[in-house]
């Protein structure tokens, strides 16, 4: 992963002790290596074509549609089902049982029989079954605020209010996008050798990309059905401002802990990208102007970012202040010579909040696609090869690994209630992942293994009674309760960014930090926490629609500065 030309001494990778803190993971932003951007980049370069061969939806908005995406070798079809949902059933939670729209991404083009089979299963979501011909299953609910406003405006012959579009940002929000074998769908292992699915979550991102088009089509269709004589289509500049929302609860947080190698590979790719950019000795005029042109667009993006949650309000205020400082700083800083990006990063580390630093990290990568885009190929993981425990390792070696990764946890008083206040568990209600109060609710016996720091400290207590030259195999034979954490620690030796360096069951833990990290890697923007464990976001806001993809710019995630939002 070395790049030779125009590099000064290679900047060091940032240490896991800095990067893997929850406060920083909860402050990262989408970047060139985000999964939505990887997908659109590939589809653009490969000249994918898109079509809507079926759109059978009635005036009430009930029916189905098929959207196809055709790549060099294969075609994929989003099969969308639109429903008439009573408002009292509209819930974004896993425990919901009906939705405004449901979807599956089909591998190929579905036959009439496939559509019939899917129509009997996809609307049921978790209660239905799909087959290995399906790659994802998802659902979405309307934004009640915006959906009716857009339909009634278009039906009346005028454009919806731009301010309302800005404040909500989407017509529907997905509430789950299941892939990788869920509900009987194809296992990831069956498709991961296809180039278009090498990077993580590409099926899911493709499904959401096509969903965005369906939702817009549905709104325009309903407006035309309501008032065929007066209805208009949505203005292209305005519709770009609509993404697909997503409403995410705790399910994503366990994912990061349960897939340490994957987490490592995502973070390591981003950190390697940053190190490469910081190692650039001299920036060209076009690179500097690219960066400078993006900065006001990033400022605009933050101005468009609304949240009512106190934590995010505070972070946004700091971020806005950061961007002012940064905007002033770059007018006088030398961005061309003497490893300019490294200097800029070091300045940011001293002067900006964590949100500001991480936004700058993403921005600095933008001019350097040639240098970093290839890292997208390093972001997936074969988790089976890393699973076995190395029983021959000595316990002194294991102890040293534990000090390296979890040394900080030795300073915590694990007897205090605050240090173990929370417990992650799965509810029997539709298996919804939840976080509870260990000392107030009867949940401890159902605890999921999502507190590696606490588990590591329990292991250390037992480790202290063994000799350093005893083997891991002998230790875990007598202490099977430590196999889980021993495996994690051994992994961390090869995968330095695999472990979160914070207590995930602390009284003050903010699960939204974990959600934010994962969603930023997806490419999400406009994080809007609804509580400490629930967040709404926007996907593909400002992105090209399928028919615009060929002509679109790579940096679509930053809004263009037009009259309306300059």
């Amino acid at each position, binding site marked *: 992963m070395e790049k030779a030309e125009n590099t000064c001494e290679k900047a060091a990778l940032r240490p896991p002790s800095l990067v893997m803190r929850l406060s920083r993971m909860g402050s990262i932003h989408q970047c060139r290596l985000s999964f939505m951007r990887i997908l659109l980049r590939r589809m653009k370069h490969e000249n994918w074509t898109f079509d809507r061969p079926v759109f059978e939806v009635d005036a009430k908005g009930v029916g189905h549609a098929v959207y196809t995406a055709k790549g060099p070798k294969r075609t994929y079809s989003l099969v969308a089902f639109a429903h008439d949902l009573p*408002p009292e059933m*509209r*819930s*974004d*939670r896993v425990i919901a049982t009906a939705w405004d729209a449901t979807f599956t991404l089909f591998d190929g083009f579905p036959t009439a029989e496939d559509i019939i089979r899917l129509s009997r299963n996809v609307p049921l979501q978790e209660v239905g*079954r799909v*087959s*290995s011909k399906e790659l994802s299953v998802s659902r979405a609910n309307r*934004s*009640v*605020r915006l959906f009716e406003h857009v339909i009634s405006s278009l039906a009346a012959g005028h454009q919806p209010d731009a301010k309302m579009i800005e404040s909500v940002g989407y017509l529907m929000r997905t509430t789950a996008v299941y892939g*990788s*074998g*869920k509900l*009987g*769908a*194809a*296992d*990831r292992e069956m498709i991961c050798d296809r180039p278009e699915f090498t990077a993580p979550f590409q099926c899911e991102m493709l499904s959401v990309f096509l969903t965005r088009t369906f939702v817009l089509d549905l709104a325009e269709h309903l407006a035309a059905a309501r008032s065929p004589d007066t209805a208009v289509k949505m203005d292209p500049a305005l519709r770009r401002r609509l993404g697909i929302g997503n*409403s995410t*609860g*705790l399910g994503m947080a366990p994912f990061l802990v349960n897939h340490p190698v994957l987490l490592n590979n995502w973070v390591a790719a981003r950190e390697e990208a940053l190190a490469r950019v910081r190692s650039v000795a001299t920036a060209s005029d076009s690179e500097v102007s690219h960066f400078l042109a993006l900065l006001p667009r990033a400022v605009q993006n933050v101005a468009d970012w609304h949240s009512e949650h106190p934590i995010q309000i505070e972070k946004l205020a700091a971020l806005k202040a950061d961007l002012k400082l940064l905007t002033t700083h770059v007018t006088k800083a030398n961005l061309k010579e003497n490893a300019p990006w490294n200097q800029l990063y070091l300045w940011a580390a001293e002067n900006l909040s964590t949100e500001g630093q991480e936004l700058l990290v993403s921005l600095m990568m933008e001019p350097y696609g040639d240098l970093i885009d290839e890292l997208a190929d390093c972001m997936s993981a074969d988790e089976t*090869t890393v*699973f*076995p*425990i*190395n*029983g*021959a390792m000595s316990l002194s070696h294991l102890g040293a690994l534990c000090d390296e990764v979890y040394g900080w946890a030795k300073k915590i008083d694990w007897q205090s209630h605050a240090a173990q206040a929370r417990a992650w*568990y*799965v*509810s*029997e*209600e539709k*298996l*919804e*992942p*939840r*976080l*509870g109060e260990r000392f107030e*609710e009867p949940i401890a016996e*159902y605890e999921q293994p999502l507190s590696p720091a606490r588990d590591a400290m329990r292991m250390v207590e037992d480790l202290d009674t063994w000799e350093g030259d005893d083997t*891991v*195999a002998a230790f*875990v*034979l007598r202490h*099977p*309760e*430590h*196999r*889980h*954490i*021993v*495996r994690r620690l051994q992994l961390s030796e090869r995968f330095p960014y695999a472990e979160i360096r914070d207590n995930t069951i602390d009284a003050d833990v903010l*699960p939204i930090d974990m959600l934010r990290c994962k969603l930023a890697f997806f490419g999400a923007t406009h994080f809007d926490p*609804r*509580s*400490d*464990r*629930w967040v709404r976001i926007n996907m593909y806001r400002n992105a090209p629609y399928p028919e615009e993809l060929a002509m679109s710019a790579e940096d679509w995630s930053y809004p263009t500065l037009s009259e309306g939002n300059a």
Partner: protein
Amino acid sequence: MTYSLNEIEAMSKRAARGAGFDWGLAEEAGKATRWLSEQGFAGPETLAALLTQNDGHPYASLSPIDVNDVWNASTGTLCPLIAGTVLCDLAARLDAGVTLGQTSYPIFLVPFVATAAKVSGTALTLSWDNTEICVSSDGGLRVSHSGDLAASVTKAVLCKGTDPSKCTDSHKNRKQDVDAKAWATLGAFAHRTYAPATEESRLAGAGAGLSDND
């Protein structure tokens, strides 16, 4: 019904946890069951039978007392999931030969020995009764048997190094069609890991707002 391999793994892991295994072992039970299904064996069915048989038996009674001579469990019958993880942990020692005493469902040792072959770079053979299974470091698998592959117990199992050329592929297609009764049994074990719904947990545990009609 047919299940994806990821569903088989997830269900098996939860079921093993529900049956009392620690999380680390439960994870390995999930991977092992998945591997069996992937290779055409009756993974979930065998796991369901094993968990039912050993339900309530503590780890200490099912694990090897000593791994220097013949491995035996204190109750007389080894659990193949536990013995399998230990075989895999000791991968480098298997080439020289290891003998296990009475063991339940010996087919469940195979995924662990297959992993051990990969880890140690050595072809290994596992034999009991009239069954011999060879696994190589590059994933080769050869099954020769005249007995019952799904035998619930065997008196002794031998694991030792072998010639990689004996491991030419003979395995069958994936078996993802799972017996409904076995799946329900696994589901019942898995259910033990789910917290009963309470109103408090329903409201606060997921942290969502009260209304999504906005």
